């Protein structure tokens, strides 16, 4: 009748049109993203001549400077295996996804690896916080989750997460070993703790308190991995009169803590978790002051030291590193990558020619894996923790050396004991049979 109505009609039409357009575009967009193909074999990610495995790693972001080299070492070892016949004739296709140490991205990237790339298994997925975020997803999709790169005790929950197996000595065990060394060698001193505000700090302090008792720590301070300022925490440790600080910190924060302590004039004996004390890593942060600040620092190790040139594993990995990863020196992070990759290949080899996910899990649960560490693994049907102990080390002039026997313990309240066994030697050819 009038303009109002007619234009109303035309607007209604416009609405319908845009509605349809919305519908179509969303449908197209959503379907366009998909359509990833995958093999139809019984075991996802396994073909006649390849095994696809994946890992989420911090190639960018806050922890990348220290850890991006780890997955390169893993890739180098897999390339070495591929050039030497592969795993039962299959070559390893190693897919690394960068999650920037951000759990949200880890969730996305792990989904990409499992659902789109259809990897057979995850190997060495990095970091406590990031990987914890995908444990449920891994369980739902029944993906073998070998050796997350972290010592969180969360990996050892076979009832809830049957597909996840730890590798590194967990932080409770390491905390117990560090604490019992402190108890023996620094009796009567005021002991405190400093740690990262996640499982690294929490599990570690739990281990320390198991040995020293609930009131064994005078003070316990936590830092946030995204806040590079630890003045407040170090100040409190200083005010509490701490003489020994057991530190569950990543290399960057160990360096920060040492530097801040020096600035504040806080002199204490630092006893640092294995993953936070690599002299090469600390030198990267502390530069010219590294030697002065790290002298006498006590730590521990569950792998042979990268500087131990006579060790069969170090010889092996140095050779491989020189050929496949030449611009990178063999420091303890790089060694971690090699050793972990070796263990993964050992498990894949043991799972046999007819590779299935169930078969791989069975091999891991059998407890037959030996690995390149100083101690055996804890693996059994109802235990998914990795190495069971460490040996104490001390840094002098930027070189770590082992200063104690190897100690082993459990992740409960069992005793810390000397390990009498002999560490395994690297196999001829560098690949497990």
């Amino acid at each position, binding site marked *: 009748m009038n303009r*109002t109505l*007619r*234009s109303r*009609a*035309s*607007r*209604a*039409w*416009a*609405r319908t*049109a*845009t*509605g349809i*357009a*919305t*519908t179509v*575009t*969303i*449908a197209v*967009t*959503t*379907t366009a*993203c*998909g*359509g*990833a193909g995958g093999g139809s074999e019984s075991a996802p990610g396994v073909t006649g001549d390849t095994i696809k495995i994946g890992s989420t790693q911090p190639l*960018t*972001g806050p922890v990348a400077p220290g850890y991006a080299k780890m997955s390169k070492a893993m890739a180098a070892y897999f390339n070495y295996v591929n050039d030497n016949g592969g795993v039962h004739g299959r070559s390893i296709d190693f897919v690394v996804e*960068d999650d*920037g140490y*951000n*759990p*949200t*991205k880890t*969730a*996305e*990237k792990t*989904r*990409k690896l499992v*659902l*789109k790339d259809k990897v057979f298994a995850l190997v060495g997925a990095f970091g*406590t*916080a990031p990987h*914890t*975020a*995908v*444990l*449920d*997803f891994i*369980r*739902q*999709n029944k993906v073998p989750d070998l050796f997350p790169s972290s010592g969180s005790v969360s990996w050892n929950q076979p009832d*809830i997460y049957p597909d996840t197996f730890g590798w590194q000595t967990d932080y409770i065990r390491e905390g117990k070993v560090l604490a019992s060394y402190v108890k023996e060698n620094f009796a009567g001193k005021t002991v405190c703790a400093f740690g*990262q*505000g*996640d499982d690294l700090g929490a599990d570690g302090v739990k281990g320390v308190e198991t040995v020293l008792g609930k009131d064994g720590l005078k003070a316990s301070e*936590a830092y*946030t*991995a*995204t806040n590079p300022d630890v003045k407040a925490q170090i100040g409190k440790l200083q005010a509490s009169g701490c003489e020994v600080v057991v530190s569950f910190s990543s290399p960057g924060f160990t360096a920060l803590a040492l530097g801040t302590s020096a600035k504040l004039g806080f002199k204490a004996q630092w006893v640092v978790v294995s993953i936070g004390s690599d002299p090469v890593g600390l030198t990267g942060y502390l530069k010219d002051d590294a030697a002065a600040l790290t002298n006498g620092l006590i730590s521990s190790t569950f792998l042979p030291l990268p500087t131990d040139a006579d060790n069969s594993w170090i010889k092996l990995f140095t050779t491989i590193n020189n050929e496949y990863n030449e611009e990178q020196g063999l420091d303890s992070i790089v060694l971690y990558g090699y050793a972990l990759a070796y263990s993964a290949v050992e498990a894949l080899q043991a799972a046999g020619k007819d590779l299935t996910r169930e078969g791989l899990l069975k091999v891991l649960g059998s407890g037959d894996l030996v690995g390149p560490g100083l101690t055996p693994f804890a693996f059994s049907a109802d235990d998914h923790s990795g190495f069971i102990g460490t040996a104490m080390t001390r840094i002098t002039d930027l070189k770590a050396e082992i200063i104690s026997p190897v100690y082993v313990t459990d992740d409960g309240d069992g005793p810390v004991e000397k390990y009498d066994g002999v560490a395994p030697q690297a196999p001829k050819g560098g690949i497990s049979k």
Partner: protein
Amino acid sequence: MRHDDTTTTEHPVLGSPARRLLTHSAVRNGLAAATVTAVGLLAVYTVDDFTVGSVAMLTAYACVAMGLTVLIGGNGQISLGHAALMAVGAYTMALFLEPRTTALREVPVLSVALALVLAVLVTLCVGLLIGLAAARLRGPYLAGATLSFGVAVPGLVTYFDHWFNGEQGLPVPPPDMPTALDNALWLPDRFVALIGVVAVGVTFFVLANVKRSAVGRHWAAVRDDEIAAQLCGLSIPREQVTAFAVSAATAGLGGAVLALFLQGVNPHSFDLRLSLGVLAAVVIGGLGSLRGAIWGSALVVFLQKVLADMDVDENLPSASYGLLLIVVMLAAPGGIQGLLSRLGDRLPRRSTHHQGDN
């Protein structure tokens, strides 16, 4: 910057036709919401296991973006802290569901539904508080204040780590799926996408009607001219606070859906980049337009996906939003929805009418 203008397009004096129109618009909003839901469901049922994750992300983004577009386009307030409001919803979800987890690490669907409602309510309350502060601020000061809220929340979460488990965050157990879906071999991601689609449908319907109600008109009046609105007897702070609270509530819902999809919450997930991503979705889609917010969310999620596959620098998505924002502001200030409406208007007859409404 042009806003869509529902207040001026209807005849103010028509009595009963106006009422009919209102009922009419409620029906139409219902139909539009049903269409959105249907498209979403179609996507959930057809796409593969990997892509369904993108659908779930998209629904989380869309919930937040729709609320934000109502706040910015509908009420003239800006917020750079919506990611923090999402965090409030997400943490509410995690804290409520944790004690209700079964031995199999699942939670009953009813608990999930309750948790979603609770997330909305809690975020609404937080939004009220922030809205009270925000209502005193204008322009860049408001942007600054909401920005600092966005930065503060991750800090608070790590400070009170005995409640929120610090940087590592809290797990959010997946819902125990109905047997029928279990039998259809659905993974939790798909079920969460389904929940997200329903959340988007409900949010769309509610917001579309609020926009056309007296409340929505008051918000728009405040946006257009505060003095004129005051002269008409409106309380400026009250309208601004309610708008902020409603917008916050949808952010809480979006955050809860995101947490459900990610199966966990942690401070890293709700950083400034998320706030900026949602803001980009709103502007690219068309300020003030609900459909535009969905468009924008789709584009942002799609961009993230594509750029992530290309293995480029992790800051590139943020940079690309910035670039897109500039392009959109220069070339199509009405955003995607504005372009579509202009296109739609042009086809039947040349019309001088505005960009589309919802």
